[in-house]
């Protein structure tokens, strides 16, 4: 029984790490522009898909190079999304921006369908598939890649926002756009950086996890929803909350799948999310909001 639980924890931490990265991407965009970007899951899918296809065939690029190229590609998509879909609709209502990003996600999915087709795609593991045994539980090297990669990126994001001028400038924009503008910060440019960073996190998440979970043109939908759930669970707008929410959601789902029913694991995740919201309407680590009247 103990080994079984350990196994569920390993699986849960791995999926949770990916949810955390997607949720972190949501949070960065939300903080910068008050937009919930439903196309976040598509960044994940595109990162994975383009890596697979750049590395495919006899003349394919080596994996690290393919991965780097696709990350750059996805960053460009993120920047284009900000510039041509989000920026022109500035000041639109919450519902309108939600539909714009959903439209963008459908559009990107459509593009992926045209370029890469409907098939499920696999990617080679980074460092072999020889399992590591911990007691009776097993761990693939790729699980370590996912967890380690996520930890590095979370630390990197933390460093970026708290110790670099650019990061602090984005934070300033999210606190008060006009004041930031008056301080000489190029708000428009900072928005582009935020979307690019968010796309980078998504693409990296996709590349890290695809050897374990495979990918297809519509793989981004559920990941996007899960990332949004994780961000809300942790408290929308709080980066640490997003990471904690992601890990927690991954663990809950893995335990629910193992101990209760694998068919209902997604439903159980959402039920727990709803219960948390009923008790704490702004998530686990969210700020209590108060309305100005």
């Amino acid at each position, binding site marked *: 029984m103990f080994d079984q639980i350990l196994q569920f924890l390993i699986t849960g931490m791995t999926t949770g790490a990916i949810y955390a990265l997607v949720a972190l991407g949501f949070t960065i965009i939300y903080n910068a522009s008050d937009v919930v970007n439903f196309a976040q899951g598509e960044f994940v899918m595109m990162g994975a898909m383009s890596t697979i296809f750049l590395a495919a065939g006899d003349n394919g690029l080596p994996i690290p190079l393919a991965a780097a190229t696709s990350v750059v590609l996805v960053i460009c998509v993120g920047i284009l999304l900000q510039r041509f*879909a989000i920026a022109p609709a500035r000041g*639109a209502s919450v519902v309108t921006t939600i539909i714009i990003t959903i439209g963008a996600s459908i559009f990107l999915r459509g593009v992926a369908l045209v370029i890469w087709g409907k098939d499920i795609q696999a990617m080679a593991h980074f460092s072999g598939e020889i399992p590591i045994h911990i007691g009776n539980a097993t761990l693939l090297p790729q699980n370590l890649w996912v967890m380690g990669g996520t930890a590095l990126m979370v630390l990197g994001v933390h460093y970026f926002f708290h110790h670099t001028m650019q990061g602090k400038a984005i934070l300033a924009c999210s606190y008060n756009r006009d004041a930031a503008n008056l301080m000489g910060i190029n708000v428009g440019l900072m928005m582009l950086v935020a979307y690019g960073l968010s796309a980078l996190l998504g693409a990296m998440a996709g590349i890290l996890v695809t050897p374990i979970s495979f990918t297809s043109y519509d793989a981004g939908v559920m990941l996007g929803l899960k990332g949004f759930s994780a961000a809300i669970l942790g408290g929308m707008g709080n980066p640490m909350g997003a990471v904690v929410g992601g890990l927690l959601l991954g663990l809950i789902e893995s335990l629910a799948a193992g101990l209760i029913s694998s068919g209902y694991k997604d439903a159980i995740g959402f039920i727990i999310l709803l219960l948390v919201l009923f008790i704490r309407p702004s998530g686990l680590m969210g700020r209590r909001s108060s309305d100005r*009247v």
Partner: protein
Amino acid sequence: MKRIKGLIILAIILIALPILFPNNYFITVVGTAVALHAVLAISLNLLMGYAGQISLGHAAFFGIGAYSSAILTTQHQWNPLLSIGAGMLITGIIAFVIARPILKLKGHYLAMATLGFGIIVSIILVQAGNFTGGPDGLSDIPPLALFGWTISSDFHWYVVMSTVLLLIVWLVNNLIDSRSGRALRALHGSEVAAEMMGINTTSVKTNVFVLSALIASFVGSLFAHQQAFISPDSFSFFFSIELVTMVVLGGLASTYGAIFGALVLTFLPELLVVFEDYEVMVFGGILMLMMIFMPQGLFVALENLISRLYRNYFNPPLPVPASDGENHDVA
């Protein structure tokens, strides 16, 4: 009076179409779907447009109604009319129970909670195979009979759905102009202000949530009897999003706008079939462009355009910007 005029025009259009184009696929089949979607969009608009509460899970209530009818008639041999009532009762209870905790939430949290509710319902529809038939759905749902008249052909359904649409429009128009309708609109303006005026906002929100769920459940049952076959695909997260898009496309808080939104979003996929592989891409692109350039909805944009053209034609152009007529009563 203005609202009655709209209702009469709608009725004339609905009657004239099948006379002008008899036995046309786009009238009897697609037209019926438009009417069905229009009723759903109007019910969602009550919640989103008038009360200002976003919901990304409206398809769940539509699904609960459809499955209640399908299960009761196929597995328990209930009378279809009785099963429609039972479906509405079940939906009403579920909506009433979740309304309070869900509507306490605001903004993105409310969006997430309703989204989560919709997904939970659609997972249950897929997983509870013993009752729902799982991903394959339920078939052989008996047709509906009214006073000995069996509704069977596409044209019959066109008549039924159009009648339902007219009834719902009439009902919603009366509601909006009533005392509770004004309370609802006050809520949209400012919840705190509404509360100060002595409106019990919690109970108003709960009531409108339950009402919109009941309407969705009712047409869900009709849908099940019309199709004779249902599967979870028809009640997924994507359908909820489509409904929200219809409402926004029509311009929030406009009943006729919601009908217009339903019209556009039902016909669009029919027309995009010609793009074959590019269909998904084109659909997403159109959705994005419409919302970017007409954030208030296509209907309002069109209305503005027409009133401006009208004014320019009959009067010399005025330097003041054109006002947008009907939608001002909710501002």
